[in-house]
Protein backbone atom coordinates (compact mmCIF):
# COMPACT_ATOMS: atom_id res chain seq x y z
CA UNK A 1 0.00 0.00 0.00
CA UNK A 2 1.12 3.57 -0.49
CA UNK A 3 3.11 5.39 2.13
CA UNK A 4 0.46 8.04 2.66
CA UNK A 5 -2.24 5.44 3.22
CA UNK A 6 0.03 3.57 5.65
CA UNK A 7 0.71 6.72 7.65
CA UNK A 8 -2.96 7.63 7.69
CA UNK A 9 -3.98 4.17 8.81
CA UNK A 10 -1.32 4.05 11.55
CA UNK A 11 -2.42 7.42 12.85
CA UNK A 12 -6.06 6.34 12.84
CA UNK A 13 -5.37 3.05 14.60
CA UNK A 14 -3.22 4.57 17.32
CA UNK A 15 -5.54 7.55 17.63
CA UNK A 16 -8.50 5.20 17.81
CA UNK A 17 -6.94 3.05 20.52
CA UNK A 18 -6.00 6.15 22.47
CA UNK A 19 -9.53 7.54 22.20
CA UNK A 20 -11.13 4.25 23.27
CA UNK A 21 -8.76 3.94 26.19
CA UNK A 22 -9.42 7.54 27.19
CA UNK A 23 -13.18 7.01 27.19
CA UNK A 24 -12.90 3.82 29.25
CA UNK A 25 -10.69 5.53 31.82
CA UNK A 26 -12.94 8.57 32.12
CA UNK A 27 -15.92 6.27 32.65
CA UNK A 28 -13.96 4.30 35.24
CA UNK A 29 -12.83 7.38 37.12
CA UNK A 30 -16.47 8.37 37.53
CA UNK A 31 -17.91 4.92 38.21
CA UNK A 32 -15.23 3.95 40.71
CA UNK A 33 -14.92 7.30 42.35
CA UNK A 34 -14.21 7.01 46.02
CA UNK A 35 -15.97 9.40 48.34
CA UNK A 36 -13.52 10.57 50.92
CA UNK A 37 -14.68 12.43 53.93
CA UNK A 38 -12.33 15.45 54.01
CA UNK A 39 -12.34 15.24 57.80
CA UNK A 40 -10.70 11.80 57.58
CA UNK A 41 -7.97 13.27 55.37
CA UNK A 42 -7.43 16.03 57.94
CA UNK A 43 -7.07 13.52 60.74
CA UNK A 44 -4.64 11.44 58.68
CA UNK A 45 -2.50 14.55 58.19
CA UNK A 46 -2.31 15.06 61.93
CA UNK A 47 -1.39 11.47 62.78
CA UNK A 48 2.29 10.41 62.95
CA UNK A 49 1.95 8.16 59.90
CA UNK A 50 4.10 5.34 61.25
CA UNK A 51 1.43 2.70 60.54
CA UNK A 52 2.71 0.72 63.53
CA UNK A 53 -0.66 -0.68 64.60
CA UNK A 54 -0.33 0.29 68.25
CA UNK A 55 -3.87 1.71 68.12
CA UNK A 56 -5.10 -1.75 67.19
CA UNK A 57 -6.25 -0.71 63.72
CA UNK A 58 -4.82 -1.41 60.29
CA UNK A 59 -2.62 1.63 59.94
CA UNK A 60 -3.09 5.37 60.46
CA UNK A 61 -5.66 5.79 57.69
CA UNK A 62 -7.86 3.07 59.15
CA UNK A 63 -7.62 4.61 62.62
CA UNK A 64 -8.52 8.02 61.19
CA UNK A 65 -11.65 6.60 59.56
CA UNK A 66 -12.71 4.87 62.77
CA UNK A 67 -12.09 7.97 64.87
CA UNK A 68 -14.26 10.09 62.57
CA UNK A 69 -16.92 7.36 62.68
CA UNK A 70 -16.56 7.52 66.47
CA UNK A 71 -15.90 3.77 66.80
CA UNK A 72 -12.34 4.41 67.97
CA UNK A 73 -11.32 6.49 71.00
CA UNK A 74 -9.74 9.85 70.23
CA UNK A 75 -6.73 9.04 72.39
CA UNK A 76 -6.22 5.65 70.73
CA UNK A 77 -2.90 6.63 69.20
CA UNK A 78 -0.15 6.48 71.81
CA UNK A 79 2.55 7.31 69.30
CA UNK A 80 1.35 10.80 68.55
CA UNK A 81 1.22 11.71 72.18
CA UNK A 82 -1.08 14.23 73.77
CA UNK A 83 -0.41 16.89 71.10
CA UNK A 84 -1.96 14.70 68.44
CA UNK A 85 -4.90 13.81 70.68
CA UNK A 86 -5.51 17.55 71.24
CA UNK A 87 -5.42 18.26 67.50
CA UNK A 88 -7.80 15.43 66.66
CA UNK A 89 -10.07 16.61 69.45
CA UNK A 90 -9.93 20.10 67.95
CA UNK A 91 -10.91 18.86 64.49
CA UNK A 92 -13.79 16.81 65.80
CA UNK A 93 -14.85 19.47 68.26
CA UNK A 94 -14.37 17.27 71.32
CA UNK A 95 -12.78 17.80 74.74
CA UNK A 96 -9.68 15.77 75.61
CA UNK A 97 -7.74 15.26 78.80
CA UNK A 98 -4.08 14.41 79.17
CA UNK A 99 -3.02 10.90 80.16
CA UNK A 100 0.21 9.92 81.82
CA UNK A 101 2.86 8.87 79.31
CA UNK A 102 4.14 5.34 79.72
CA UNK A 103 7.38 3.77 78.60
CA UNK A 104 8.69 0.21 78.47
CA UNK A 105 10.60 -0.91 81.51
CA UNK A 106 13.25 -3.66 81.58
CA UNK A 107 12.52 -6.05 84.43
CA UNK A 108 15.88 -7.72 84.48
CA UNK A 109 19.32 -6.81 85.71
CA UNK A 110 21.12 -9.86 84.41
CA UNK A 111 22.94 -9.17 81.18
CA UNK A 112 26.63 -9.26 81.97
CA UNK A 113 25.83 -9.92 85.62
CA UNK A 114 24.34 -13.29 84.72
CA UNK A 115 26.56 -16.21 83.70
CA UNK A 116 26.21 -17.95 80.34
CA UNK A 117 25.29 -21.60 80.32
CA UNK A 118 26.20 -22.31 76.71
CA UNK A 119 28.29 -20.65 74.04
CA UNK A 120 25.59 -19.66 71.54
CA UNK A 121 26.43 -19.15 67.89
CA UNK A 122 23.42 -18.78 65.67
CA UNK A 123 20.54 -16.58 64.62
CA UNK A 124 20.69 -13.23 66.41
CA UNK A 125 17.17 -13.38 67.77
CA UNK A 126 16.03 -13.83 71.38
CA UNK A 127 13.16 -16.07 70.32
CA UNK A 128 15.55 -18.37 68.47
CA UNK A 129 17.87 -18.55 71.49
CA UNK A 130 14.99 -19.43 73.82
CA UNK A 131 14.10 -22.36 71.58
CA UNK A 132 17.47 -23.96 72.29
CA UNK A 133 17.76 -25.58 75.72
CA UNK A 134 15.82 -22.80 77.45
CA UNK A 135 18.18 -20.02 76.49
CA UNK A 136 21.90 -19.45 76.69
CA UNK A 137 22.10 -17.94 80.16
CA UNK A 138 22.11 -19.65 83.54
CA UNK A 139 18.78 -17.96 84.22
CA UNK A 140 16.14 -19.10 81.74
CA UNK A 141 13.76 -16.29 82.71
CA UNK A 142 16.12 -13.43 82.08
CA UNK A 143 16.78 -11.04 79.25
CA UNK A 144 18.54 -12.79 76.36
CA UNK A 145 20.00 -9.58 74.99
CA UNK A 146 20.08 -10.59 71.34
CA UNK A 147 17.99 -7.64 70.16
CA UNK A 148 14.52 -8.88 69.22
CA UNK A 149 13.07 -5.79 70.91
CA UNK A 150 15.58 -3.56 69.06
CA UNK A 151 14.35 -4.85 65.72
CA UNK A 152 10.70 -4.78 66.74
CA UNK A 153 10.78 -1.10 67.60
CA UNK A 154 9.50 0.88 64.59
CA UNK A 155 11.12 4.07 65.92
CA UNK A 156 14.63 2.78 66.67
CA UNK A 157 14.27 3.73 70.33
CA UNK A 158 15.93 0.63 71.80
CA UNK A 159 19.60 -0.29 71.84
CA UNK A 160 21.43 -3.15 73.56
CA UNK A 161 24.01 -1.66 75.90
CA UNK A 162 27.39 -2.92 77.00
CA UNK A 163 25.63 -4.57 79.94
CA UNK A 164 23.78 -6.78 77.39
CA UNK A 165 20.44 -5.29 78.45
CA UNK A 166 18.07 -3.14 76.38
CA UNK A 167 18.16 0.62 76.90
CA UNK A 168 15.13 2.64 75.90
CA UNK A 169 15.51 6.18 74.65
CA UNK A 170 12.47 7.94 76.10
CA UNK A 171 12.74 10.77 73.58
CA UNK A 172 12.34 8.40 70.67
CA UNK A 173 9.95 5.97 72.33
CA UNK A 174 6.38 6.50 71.23
CA UNK A 175 4.77 4.05 73.68
CA UNK A 176 3.44 1.77 70.98
CA UNK A 177 4.32 -1.28 73.15
CA UNK A 178 5.25 -3.49 70.21
CA UNK A 179 8.50 -4.41 71.99
CA UNK A 180 6.50 -5.65 74.98
CA UNK A 181 4.64 -8.08 72.72
CA UNK A 182 7.77 -9.29 70.95
CA UNK A 183 9.93 -10.11 73.96
CA UNK A 184 9.88 -13.91 74.40
CA UNK A 185 10.59 -13.70 78.14
CA UNK A 186 8.12 -10.94 78.98
CA UNK A 187 10.96 -8.79 80.32
CA UNK A 188 9.46 -5.50 79.17
CA UNK A 189 6.41 -3.91 80.74
CA UNK A 190 4.84 -0.49 80.24
CA UNK A 191 5.21 1.79 83.25
CA UNK A 192 4.66 5.47 83.85
CA UNK A 193 7.20 7.82 85.42
CA UNK A 194 5.17 7.89 88.62
CA UNK A 195 5.92 4.21 89.21
CA UNK A 196 9.46 4.54 90.51
CA UNK A 197 10.08 1.26 92.36
CA UNK A 198 10.51 -1.94 90.36
CA UNK A 199 11.64 -5.54 90.90
CA UNK A 200 14.32 -6.12 88.29
CA UNK A 201 13.85 -9.83 88.00
CA UNK A 202 11.47 -12.38 86.48
CA UNK A 203 13.12 -15.53 87.74
CA UNK A 204 11.11 -18.11 89.63
CA UNK A 205 14.11 -20.37 90.20
CA UNK A 206 15.04 -21.39 93.75
CA UNK A 207 17.09 -18.84 95.66
CA UNK A 208 20.27 -20.94 95.75
CA UNK A 209 20.19 -21.46 91.96
CA UNK A 210 19.52 -17.78 91.30
CA UNK A 211 22.41 -16.70 93.52
CA UNK A 212 24.79 -19.06 91.72
CA UNK A 213 24.12 -17.59 88.29
CA UNK A 214 23.00 -13.98 88.78
CA UNK A 215 24.40 -11.16 90.89
CA UNK A 216 21.07 -9.33 91.21
CA UNK A 217 18.42 -12.01 90.92
CA UNK A 218 15.43 -12.30 93.27
CA UNK A 219 15.85 -15.23 95.68
CA UNK A 220 12.37 -15.08 97.18
CA UNK A 221 13.54 -14.25 100.71
CA UNK A 222 10.38 -12.18 101.40
CA UNK A 223 12.24 -9.44 103.27
CA UNK A 224 10.69 -6.81 100.97
CA UNK A 225 7.14 -8.07 101.53
CA UNK A 226 7.58 -8.08 105.28
CA UNK A 227 8.92 -4.53 105.29
CA UNK A 228 6.37 -2.96 102.99
CA UNK A 229 4.06 -0.58 104.97
CA UNK A 230 1.39 -0.70 102.25
CA UNK A 231 1.43 -4.52 101.75
CA UNK A 232 2.12 -3.83 98.10
CA UNK A 233 4.56 -6.70 97.57
CA UNK A 234 3.58 -10.32 97.02
CA UNK A 235 6.10 -13.13 96.68
CA UNK A 236 4.80 -16.05 94.58
CA UNK A 237 7.16 -19.00 94.51
CA UNK A 238 10.58 -17.38 94.51
CA UNK A 239 9.74 -14.10 92.79
CA UNK A 240 8.62 -10.81 94.32
CA UNK A 241 6.14 -8.56 92.52
CA UNK A 242 5.09 -5.02 93.39
CA UNK A 243 1.48 -3.92 93.02
CA UNK A 244 2.05 -0.44 91.56
CA UNK A 245 -1.45 0.71 92.54
CA UNK A 246 -0.62 0.30 96.25
CA UNK A 247 3.05 1.34 96.05
CA UNK A 248 3.83 4.83 97.44
CA UNK A 249 7.48 4.92 96.31
CA UNK A 250 8.69 5.01 99.91
CA UNK A 251 11.75 2.91 99.02
CA UNK A 252 11.92 0.70 102.14
CA UNK A 253 12.08 -2.46 100.05
CA UNK A 254 14.94 -1.00 98.02
CA UNK A 255 17.01 -0.42 101.18
CA UNK A 256 16.32 -3.87 102.58
CA UNK A 257 16.75 -6.12 99.57
CA UNK A 258 19.85 -8.29 100.15
CA UNK A 259 20.30 -8.94 96.42
CA UNK A 260 19.73 -5.33 95.34
CA UNK A 261 17.05 -6.66 92.99
CA UNK A 262 14.56 -3.88 93.73
CA UNK A 263 15.55 -0.45 92.52
CA UNK A 264 14.23 3.07 92.72
CA UNK A 265 14.36 4.67 89.31
CA UNK A 266 14.35 8.44 88.90
CA UNK A 267 12.34 9.63 85.87
CA UNK A 268 15.24 11.47 84.26
CA UNK A 269 17.18 8.24 83.90
CA UNK A 270 16.58 5.86 80.97
CA UNK A 271 13.98 3.16 81.57
CA UNK A 272 16.39 0.49 82.71
CA UNK A 273 18.71 -0.21 85.66
Amino acid at each position, binding site marked *: *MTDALLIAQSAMVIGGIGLLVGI*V*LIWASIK*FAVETNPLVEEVIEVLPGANCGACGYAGC*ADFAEKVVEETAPIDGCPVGGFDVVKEIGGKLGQEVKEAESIYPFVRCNGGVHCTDKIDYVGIEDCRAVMMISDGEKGCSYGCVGRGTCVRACPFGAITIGDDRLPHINKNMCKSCAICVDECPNDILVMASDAEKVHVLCRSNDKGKLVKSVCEFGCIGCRICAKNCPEDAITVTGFLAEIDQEKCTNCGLCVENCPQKTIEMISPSVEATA
Partner: protein
Amino acid sequence: MEDVSLFAIAINGIFVKNFLLVQFLGLCSFLGVSKETKSAAGMSAAVMFVMIMASIAAFLIYTFLLKPFGLTFLTTISFIIIIASLVQLVEFIIRKFSPPLYRSLGIFLPLITTNCAILGVVILNVRLEYGFIESVFYGFTAGVGYTMVMLIMSSIREKCSVLRIPEAVQGIPHAFFITTLLSMAFVNFFGVIPT
Protein backbone atom coordinates in the same frame (compact mmCIF):
# COMPACT_ATOMS: atom_id res chain seq x y z
CA MET B 1 0.83 -22.84 14.19
CA GLU B 2 0.62 -26.41 15.37
CA ASP B 3 -1.80 -27.27 18.11
CA VAL B 4 -0.30 -26.58 21.50
CA SER B 5 -2.05 -28.30 24.35
CA LEU B 6 -3.16 -26.19 27.28
CA PHE B 7 -1.32 -28.54 29.59
CA ALA B 8 1.94 -27.87 27.73
CA ILE B 9 1.31 -24.13 28.01
CA ALA B 10 0.71 -24.46 31.73
CA ILE B 11 3.89 -26.43 32.36
CA ASN B 12 5.83 -24.00 30.18
CA GLY B 13 4.44 -20.91 31.83
CA ILE B 14 4.84 -22.06 35.41
CA PHE B 15 7.95 -24.23 35.35
CA VAL B 16 9.97 -24.77 32.19
CA LYS B 17 9.95 -21.16 31.02
CA ASN B 18 9.24 -19.54 34.36
CA PHE B 19 9.10 -15.81 33.78
CA LEU B 20 11.26 -14.78 36.69
CA LEU B 21 13.82 -17.51 37.04
CA VAL B 22 14.29 -18.63 33.44
CA GLN B 23 13.15 -15.84 31.15
CA PHE B 24 14.44 -12.98 33.33
CA LEU B 25 11.21 -11.01 33.02
CA GLY B 26 9.88 -8.93 35.88
CA LEU B 27 13.09 -8.85 37.91
CA CYS B 28 12.98 -5.23 39.07
CA SER B 29 9.62 -5.64 40.78
CA PHE B 30 10.71 -9.05 42.04
CA LEU B 31 13.67 -7.63 43.95
CA GLY B 32 11.77 -4.63 45.21
CA VAL B 33 8.62 -6.26 46.51
CA SER B 34 9.78 -9.68 47.65
CA LYS B 35 10.96 -8.48 51.08
CA GLU B 36 7.59 -9.01 52.76
CA THR B 37 5.05 -11.71 52.01
CA LYS B 38 2.18 -9.26 52.39
CA SER B 39 3.32 -6.90 49.63
CA ALA B 40 4.57 -9.83 47.52
CA ALA B 41 1.13 -11.44 47.60
CA GLY B 42 -0.63 -8.19 46.75
CA MET B 43 1.75 -7.40 43.91
CA SER B 44 1.47 -10.93 42.46
CA ALA B 45 -2.31 -10.80 42.48
CA ALA B 46 -2.30 -7.45 40.70
CA VAL B 47 0.28 -8.69 38.17
CA MET B 48 -1.67 -11.87 37.45
CA PHE B 49 -4.88 -9.91 36.95
CA VAL B 50 -3.22 -7.42 34.60
CA MET B 51 -1.53 -10.26 32.68
CA ILE B 52 -4.86 -11.96 31.98
CA MET B 53 -6.68 -8.78 31.01
CA ALA B 54 -3.75 -7.57 28.90
CA SER B 55 -3.61 -10.90 27.07
CA ILE B 56 -7.28 -10.60 26.18
CA ALA B 57 -7.13 -6.97 25.10
CA ALA B 58 -3.85 -7.37 23.22
CA PHE B 59 -5.11 -10.40 21.34
CA LEU B 60 -8.24 -8.56 20.22
CA ILE B 61 -6.32 -5.47 19.11
CA TYR B 62 -3.70 -7.55 17.27
CA THR B 63 -6.10 -9.93 15.53
CA PHE B 64 -8.82 -7.47 14.51
CA LEU B 65 -6.96 -4.21 14.10
CA LEU B 66 -3.24 -4.62 13.49
CA LYS B 67 -2.92 -7.79 11.47
CA PRO B 68 -5.73 -7.23 8.94
CA PHE B 69 -4.38 -3.79 8.04
CA GLY B 70 -0.75 -4.91 7.94
CA LEU B 71 0.16 -2.60 10.81
CA THR B 72 2.01 -5.15 12.90
CA PHE B 73 4.84 -2.68 13.45
CA LEU B 74 2.45 -0.82 15.75
CA THR B 75 2.38 -3.84 18.07
CA THR B 76 4.75 -2.49 20.69
CA ILE B 77 3.14 0.91 20.99
CA SER B 78 -0.46 -0.33 21.05
CA PHE B 79 0.33 -3.00 23.61
CA ILE B 80 2.03 -0.57 25.94
CA ILE B 81 -0.92 1.84 25.72
CA ILE B 82 -3.28 -1.00 26.61
CA ILE B 83 -1.15 -2.13 29.53
CA ALA B 84 -0.79 1.38 30.92
CA SER B 85 -4.54 1.94 30.81
CA LEU B 86 -5.29 -1.47 32.32
CA VAL B 87 -3.03 -0.67 35.23
CA GLN B 88 -4.80 2.63 35.73
CA LEU B 89 -8.14 0.78 35.65
CA VAL B 90 -6.94 -1.78 38.18
CA GLU B 91 -5.81 1.12 40.38
CA PHE B 92 -9.31 2.64 40.29
CA ILE B 93 -10.94 -0.69 41.13
CA ILE B 94 -8.60 -1.56 44.00
CA ARG B 95 -8.93 1.94 45.43
CA LYS B 96 -12.70 1.61 45.47
CA PHE B 97 -13.09 -1.93 46.74
CA SER B 98 -10.12 -2.42 49.05
CA PRO B 99 -8.55 0.79 50.40
CA PRO B 100 -6.16 -1.09 52.77
CA LEU B 101 -4.78 -3.10 49.83
CA TYR B 102 -4.51 0.09 47.82
CA ARG B 103 -2.51 1.78 50.57
CA SER B 104 -0.21 -1.19 51.14
CA LEU B 105 0.58 -1.55 47.43
CA GLY B 106 1.37 2.14 47.30
CA ILE B 107 3.89 2.89 44.59
CA PHE B 108 4.01 -0.68 43.28
CA LEU B 109 0.76 -0.41 41.40
CA PRO B 110 1.88 2.16 38.83
CA LEU B 111 5.16 0.27 38.57
CA ILE B 112 3.38 -2.72 37.05
CA THR B 113 3.20 -0.71 33.84
CA THR B 114 6.96 -0.95 33.39
CA ASN B 115 7.06 -4.55 34.53
CA CYS B 116 8.66 -6.36 31.61
CA ALA B 117 6.75 -9.51 32.52
CA ILE B 118 3.44 -8.04 31.38
CA LEU B 119 4.69 -6.67 28.06
CA GLY B 120 6.71 -9.89 27.72
CA VAL B 121 3.60 -12.06 27.98
CA VAL B 122 1.62 -10.18 25.36
CA ILE B 123 4.54 -10.02 22.92
CA LEU B 124 5.23 -13.73 23.41
CA ASN B 125 1.57 -14.47 22.72
CA VAL B 126 2.01 -12.75 19.37
CA ARG B 127 5.35 -14.34 18.54
CA LEU B 128 4.20 -17.84 19.47
CA GLU B 129 1.08 -17.23 17.37
CA TYR B 130 -1.29 -18.41 20.08
CA GLY B 131 -5.04 -18.35 19.55
CA PHE B 132 -7.41 -16.61 21.93
CA ILE B 133 -7.77 -19.35 24.54
CA GLU B 134 -4.06 -20.16 24.43
CA SER B 135 -3.13 -16.49 24.86
CA VAL B 136 -5.38 -15.97 27.86
CA PHE B 137 -4.27 -19.24 29.38
CA TYR B 138 -0.61 -18.35 28.87
CA GLY B 139 -1.24 -15.02 30.59
CA PHE B 140 -2.84 -16.87 33.49
CA THR B 141 -0.11 -19.48 33.87
CA ALA B 142 2.65 -16.89 33.56
CA GLY B 143 0.95 -15.09 36.44
CA VAL B 144 0.82 -18.30 38.44
CA GLY B 145 4.53 -18.90 37.86
CA TYR B 146 5.33 -15.33 38.89
CA THR B 147 3.21 -15.60 42.04
CA MET B 148 4.77 -18.90 43.01
CA VAL B 149 8.33 -17.63 42.79
CA MET B 150 7.45 -14.34 44.51
CA LEU B 151 5.89 -16.13 47.48
CA ILE B 152 8.78 -18.58 47.80
CA MET B 153 11.24 -15.70 47.64
CA SER B 154 9.41 -13.52 50.17
CA SER B 155 9.11 -16.39 52.65
CA ILE B 156 12.83 -17.03 52.40
CA ARG B 157 13.77 -13.35 52.65
CA GLU B 158 11.53 -12.82 55.68
CA LYS B 159 13.28 -15.65 57.49
CA CYS B 160 16.67 -14.36 56.43
CA SER B 161 16.11 -11.04 58.18
CA VAL B 162 17.70 -12.43 61.33
CA LEU B 163 20.79 -13.91 59.74
CA ARG B 164 24.27 -12.53 60.18
CA ILE B 165 25.24 -11.44 56.66
CA PRO B 166 28.42 -9.52 55.76
CA GLU B 167 27.52 -5.89 55.15
CA ALA B 168 28.55 -5.91 51.49
CA VAL B 169 26.26 -8.82 50.74
CA GLN B 170 23.20 -7.51 52.58
CA GLY B 171 20.18 -6.56 50.54
CA ILE B 172 20.25 -7.05 46.78
CA PRO B 173 23.34 -9.28 46.38
CA HIS B 174 21.88 -11.59 49.03
CA ALA B 175 18.59 -11.67 47.14
CA PHE B 176 20.46 -12.56 43.96
CA PHE B 177 22.22 -15.47 45.65
CA ILE B 178 18.92 -16.84 46.86
CA THR B 179 17.58 -16.44 43.32
CA THR B 180 20.60 -18.37 42.01
CA LEU B 181 19.66 -21.35 44.13
CA LEU B 182 16.00 -21.15 43.14
CA SER B 183 16.98 -20.85 39.49
CA MET B 184 19.23 -23.90 39.77
CA ALA B 185 16.24 -25.88 40.98
CA PHE B 186 14.25 -24.78 37.96
CA VAL B 187 16.97 -25.91 35.56
CA ASN B 188 15.70 -29.40 36.21
CA PHE B 189 12.60 -28.57 34.23
CA PHE B 190 14.51 -27.86 31.02
CA GLY B 191 13.59 -30.22 28.22
CA VAL B 192 10.39 -31.38 29.92
CA ILE B 193 8.50 -29.67 27.13
CA PRO B 194 10.55 -30.18 23.94
CA THR B 195 10.97 -26.90 22.08
